[in-house]
């Protein structure tokens, strides 16, 4: 246990905390005036100061930080204008039914303004209440911000809630902002033409970060702060090592391979968390090896891993089944597999010929590991040997698995290639 250990544990905790805090992550991405953060903030704050109504849609793939940026903007605005904002949050998964939604709006409005909420209120009462509250807040110069998460789910059915909200914003007496958040790019095409006409067509697109932004983000996340409780020279050395890693070509290669399938910020954070958790506590520094070990955890192929654990006999059975399928025998059972197995043994004179009962055991193992399965749903009365089966693994994967098997018999590879 070296002298650096408590510091390295602290550093690890600090990094892990950062990776789980969306506020910290999205701050550097929001600094430029061109970013979505500043555009959204400008829109909402100008609606508040000029007392006019607005509506906007935030679009982008899942995990690109739409809700995080929205929370940042709302947090800042609540500090700047403490008494003049109230925020109503609705979610399309919970409140897509109009009755539920209006009830939830009424409940949240009551909570904000310390009024009594009655669960017995009808749809009419609740909607009258909402309109009255909008009018009152408009007179009192308070802005109500409606946040509709999963906006595309609100656009199912008759879209009454959307119509009444957007219609209320057309009148002079109310002061509200409607912010819709959705992962569907065509969310505004889902709206009915009346609702779409009342919606102000502003869209903010959340795209994955480009290379420079990514580099800046990584440096921002992984560098230790100078003014924390960690010893200064340790922090300096740590940051120096991080800079070296980030400039390394191999690291860039790893990150690129990882982000090739999903380039959202959330996905990257998951990878960083795993890599950071592999940090060697003895030395207290991150190294390229941590990132390299973290990568395979995210590129798992479970069926290939199952093949690695199979015995040779099980591999034989799988290859036999593949040959039967290739010969266009659409339904076959254990008996046909045994026939095929025997014919292979006869033609190639292999040494691996086992008795029927042993093969049946291997067959059942394969069933349990879900590399094969039965194709009929009933038929429990029949014996295992007579029920039709099929492969659950594709030929390509099987071939791949055989090639990477530690001591695969050459005959099997030859049979696969035929």
């Amino acid at each position: 246990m070296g002298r650096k250990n408590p510091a390295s544990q602290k550093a690890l905790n600090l990094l892990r905390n950062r990776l789980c805090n969306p506020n910290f992550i999205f701050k550097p991405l929001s600094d430029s005036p061109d970013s979505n953060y500043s555009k959204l903030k400008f829109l909402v704050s100008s609606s508040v100061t000029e007392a006019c109504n607005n509506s906007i849609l935030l679009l982008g793939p899942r995990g690109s930080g739409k809700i995080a940026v929205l929370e940042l903007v709302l947090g800042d605005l609540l500090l700047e204008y403490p008494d003049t904002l109230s925020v109503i949050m609705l979610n399309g998964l919970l409140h897509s039914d109009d009755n539920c939604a209006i009830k939830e709006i009424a409940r949240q409005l009551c909570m904000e303004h310390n009024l009594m909420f009655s669960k017995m209120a009808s749809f009419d009462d609740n909607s009258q209440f909402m309109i009255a509250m909008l009018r009152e807040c408009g007179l009192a110069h308070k802005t109500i911000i409606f946040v509709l998460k999963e906006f595309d789910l609100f656009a199912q059915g008759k879209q009454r809630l959307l119509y009444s909200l957007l219609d209320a914003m057309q009148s002079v007496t109310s002061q509200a902002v409607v912010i819709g958040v959705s992962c569907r790019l065509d969310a505004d095409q889902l709206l009915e033409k009346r609702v779409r006409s009342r919606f102000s067509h502003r869209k903010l697109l959340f795209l994955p970060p480009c290379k420079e932004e990514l580099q800046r983000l990584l440096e921002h996340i992984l560098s230790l702060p100078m003014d924390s409780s960690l010893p200064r020279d340790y922090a300096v050395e740590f940051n120096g090592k991080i800079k070296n890693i980030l400039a390394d070509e191999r690291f860039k290669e790893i990150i690129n391979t990882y982000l090739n399938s999903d380039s959202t910020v959330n996905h990257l954070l998951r990878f960083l968390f795993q890599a950071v958790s592999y940090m060697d506590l003895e030395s207290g520094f991150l190294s390229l090896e941590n990132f390299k070990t973290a990568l395979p955890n995210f590129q798992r192929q479970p069926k290939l891993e199952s093949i690695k654990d199979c015995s040779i006999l099980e591999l034989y059975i799988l290859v036999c089944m593949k040959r039967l399928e290739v010969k266009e025998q659409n339904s076959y059972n254990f008996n046909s597999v045994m026939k095929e197995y025997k014919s292979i043994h006869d033609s190639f004179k292999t040494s691996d010929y086992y008795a029927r009962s042993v093969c049946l055991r291997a067959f059942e193992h394969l069933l349990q590991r879900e590399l094969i399965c039965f194709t009929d749903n009933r038929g429990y009365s029949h014996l295992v040997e007579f029920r039709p089966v099929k492969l659950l693994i594709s030929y390509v994967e099987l071939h791949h698995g055989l090639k990477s098997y530690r001591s695969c018999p050459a005959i099997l590879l030859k049979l696969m290639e035929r």
Partner: protein
Amino acid sequence: MPAIASHDSILAIKSEKSGEIARSNGDSTPQKRRLRSDAAAEQNKSPTSTPMKWTSPRRSLNSSPNTPINGIEKSSDEKLVTRKSPVKKRLFESYVEQMSAVKEALHVSTAPSTVVCREEEQKRVLEFCKKHLEQEKAGSLYVCGCPGTGKSLSMDKIKQHLLDWAKEEGFQVPDLLAINCTSLTNTSEIFSKIIFKIQGRKKINGSTSPLQHLQNLYSQKQQSSGSKMMLIVADELDYLITRDRAVLHDLFMLTTFSFSRFILIGIANAIDLADRFLPRLQSLNCKPLVVTFRAYSKDQIIRILQERLMALPYIVFQPQALELCARKVAAASGDMRKALSVCRSAIEVLDAELRESASKINSTSVEKGSFDQQAAPALEFFNSQANYIFGAIRLHIYLFLVRVDHMAVALSNTFKSPVVDTIQSLPQHQQIILCSAVKFFRRGKKDTTVGELNKSYMEICKTSLIPPVGILEFSSMCRVLNDQGLLKLGQSREDKLKRVTLKIDESDITFALQVWIKPSKFSAFMEFVSFGTVFNNFALKLEING
């Protein structure tokens, strides 16, 4: 081009307001919130109460930025030279509040005082209502048109006119009932609302439904003669359409009873609602009068925008910019709300540009150290520009005009679909999936399973020497593309058997991936999808969509 008529009165109010604000703010320049009560109080003041204290240099008599402004320049020169520093401060504040004034004038919720371009339709409806009111007969009218064509706005004006006219002519002022049919939980509730309006109580005796009650009421002669006529305006009438179309029918039938006292005006979007859903009325010879509100043409849109902007004493939009906006919106839908929204976002584009250049000037001035460090950066920008004012007011005005390029940016933000941008920013493998889908579907089939798509994907990866991902990651990427609305995944118990279709156009994908330059690894699979005429097709599509 609008002739700015006597703007003295308006200027008086403006200078007063800005004078007040300048006095109260002193050195600080925060964004002052325009309270609605301020605006209301202002309207009540008489326009000629106070003389002009300070002339705003931001004025123009002509719309073109090139013609010299003779008379004002000389007089303002003398006035402004003597008050150099207060003018600069007030310049910034007046800019901020003028921007917000323009935005408010262009907001959808600001109802204009006169409704232009709808005089013909308003006259027809008004004539109809006046005739029926005079003769104390019941009648029905159906107003139809696309969204954003001014139907509800016109109806509000007509209601007001009708009440005023009835008072003038000495007729009994009719009752007014305005219902928006989206707020009804049950379609037959509309009858109970009508009864409530007539009788003032919701509870009706016995077992008769509201509808029957109304029918009974109007099939016999009224006991109390001279009961009032009622004007019912039903907005969004198609919410009343049920499967058996009973409610809509009964509502219009109520006007056919011999002793009925309604004038019913229905508003909806469908042009043929009356023909499709009310066939029996034709046989009774009381089909409702249909007034169609056509979509706005380019000239009408320009007129309406200018009408709104005429209330302001300065020019904000270059005329070519307004024309561009009107042309695009008229070609797309003729929806006035869209035109207003585009103009507002054009102002925001201008605002962002000015702020950006102000902060740039501030950063350069900090290096030079020649400006006062305490003032706000935007104020510095205006400071530097103030030197131009006395020399050339027209240059100053030109800087604050919304030009054609601002309008073009705003139009592209509104009309452009985010699909092409999103495809270009997708990660590599997801783009390969889209390419493999395009290639697969070109053979003729329009949908396939995830398993087949995977095979196509592996082929492309093999030929372009990119290591493919496993089936698990492949199906999760398909799910991500489904969430974004680019692919459509069906339901199935097994992952591989889910059906996949493309939801976006093939040409969008080819356009997005052609234009985008990437390292040569991809040139191999680009060969699969690129063909020459696509670019023309997409450009053509842009033209058609306006």
